[in-house]
């Protein structure tokens, strides 16, 4: 296992590259997912309350 981590002496280059890429991929993914979830919910809620106000 440690030989694998060693990456033939290039560990200090290979691992940061992968961590950076996969890190950004995950963070960007979660941020986008969460923003669409909350915004869509809020839009629905606002539309709903606006609808109620109009009735009475």
């Amino acid at each position: 296992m440690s030989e694998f981590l060693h990456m033939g002496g290039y560990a200090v280059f290979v691992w940061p590259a992968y961590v950076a890429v996969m890190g950004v991929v995950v963070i960007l993914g979660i941020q986008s997912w969460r923003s669409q979830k909350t915004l869509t919910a809020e839009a629905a809620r606002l539309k709903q309350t606006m609808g109620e106000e109009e009735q009475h």
Partner: protein
Amino acid sequence: MMHRFANPTRFVRLADRMLPWLFIVTLGSFAVGLYMALITSPPDYQQGDSVRIMYVHAPSAWMGLFGYMVLAGASFASLVWRHPLADAAAKASAPIGAAFTGLALLTGSLWGQPMWGTWWVWDARLTSMLVLFFLYLGYMALWSAIEDRQKASKAAAILALVGAINVPIIKFSVDWWNTLHQPASIMRQGGPSMDSAMLWPLGIMFVAFNAYYAMVLMWRIKAELAARKIETLRYNQAARQEGPAARQEGPAARQEGQAVLEEGS
């Protein structure tokens, strides 16, 4: 065909159907791709294990450029065909493309360091990517600088089209500038000459990156559409609360206004 997606609600329904599949494909191809890239694929006879960075560098570089193409295409559709969803897609695509361009620069420098002995070399590809990164920053800065959303989307679309026309010119002039000052760079991009054990992981990583891009783009478009819906509802709320003069005409104006908005968008 163009207007099949035009209606925001229809797009959202379609996106919600595709998103679970995209998620599975992305997750699966990343898992397999990473496994092959890091474990099963052979080290390069010259660069040793540092060649593994290529499996994330090449797809990132491609996504950066592809993101800009989507950006320019969406801007063209929004400006020329007045496609109502296109500017949401353009605005959603920019951050993803910028992120991947930044990652391509980072991984490019990490990959080149063992060979060049320094963290940054003005290699033709890296330099072009750096300029592309600035084009992205300019695009996003313009969006945030203009308050009125309609004006911001059209101004950004103009900038994206002007940028798109200049990308090949910049690429050509940087390549020309590079050959003038430096012999051809030794960072092999890895053409078909690479043995198949390397081609497979690269191919799978490409699939993973593209599927991921489509998924996140759809999420961000949904977020943008929801944000616009909220903005319009807030405006209507304000319009309704206006002074007594508008009150008796208020609801009537809002109904007509609403009708106009539906037919207009």
